C-alpha cells in the first residue's frame, strides 16, 4: 500500500511538486531512512534533503521526530521548521 508524501515551503519548491504517492522498500523503516531513499533520486530531491537539520516532519498530521517509524503511516509530510504567528 502506498504512502502519501506531502512537501511544504522550500522543500516543495526544490522538488517541484506538492506531494506524491510512494511505495518504499521494506528496509525503509523510519522517516530518516525515507529521506535518504528519496534523496537518492538526485536533482531537486537531493537539494531539498541535503541538510537534515533544516527538516521537520509530521506523520498522519502529527509532528514526529525524524527517527519515528513509518510503519502504518498513511500520510507523511516533510517541511522546514515552521514560521507562523
Amino acid at each position, binding site marked *: 500500500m502506498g504512502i502519501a508524501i*506531502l512537501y*511544504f*515551503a*522550500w522543500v516543495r519548491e526544490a522538488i517541484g511538486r506538492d506531494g506524491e504517492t510512494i511505495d518504499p522498500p521494506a528496509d525503509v523503516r523510519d522517516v530518516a531512512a525515507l529521506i535518504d531513499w528519496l534523496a537518492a533520486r538526485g536533482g531537486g530531491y537531493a537539494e531539498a534533503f541535503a541538510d537534515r537539520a533544516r527538516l521537520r516532519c*509530521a506523520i498522519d*498530521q*502529527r*509532528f514526529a521526530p525524524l527517527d519515528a517509524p513509518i510503519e502504518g503511516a498513511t500520510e507523511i*509530510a516533510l*517541511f*522546514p*521548521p*515552521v*514560521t*507562523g*504567528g
Partner: protein
Amino acid sequence: MSNRVLVQAADFDIGHELARLEALGGGGVASFTGVVRGGGDENGGFAALHLEAYPGMTQRALDDVAAQAQARWPLLGLTLIHRFGTLFAGDRIVLVATAARHRGAALDACAFLIDWTKTRAPFWKQERFSDGTARWIEQTAADASTAADWDASAEHGRP
C-alpha cells in the same frame, strides 16, 4: 470554556472578537495581534508576505495549542485566528485573545498562545520582493527557546 479557533484567508474583526470574550463574565480580556511589518530600511523592496499552511493539520495543531492553554490557566474563553495566503504591510496575520476572571491568567495565557503558535502550528512565511524575488523566513532560535521556556515552567510546577 468557549474556544474559537480558526484558520482562514479572510481578515477578522478584532472589536467583534473581543466583545465576544468580554461577554463571558470575566474581569479581564487580553489580546495580541500579529501584523505584517512594513517600512524600515531592512524591508527595502518588500512587496508581500505569503503564508503557506498545511490543510487539515494546521487546524488540528492550533486546536491542540488552545487545549494546552485551557489546561494550564483558568480561562473563560479564548480566540485564536490565523490567516494564510498573500498579505501586505499592515495586514493582520494572527489574533490571540483570552478571557479570565483575573488579568494574570488572561495575560499569561495570551503570551503562551502566541509563543506556541509560532513553533507548533504548520505555517511557513515567505517574503516576496518588488523585483520578483522571494525568501523563505527561517525559524529563529529566539522563537524556539521562548516556546521551550513554557515547557520548562510547566515542569517546575507552575503554569
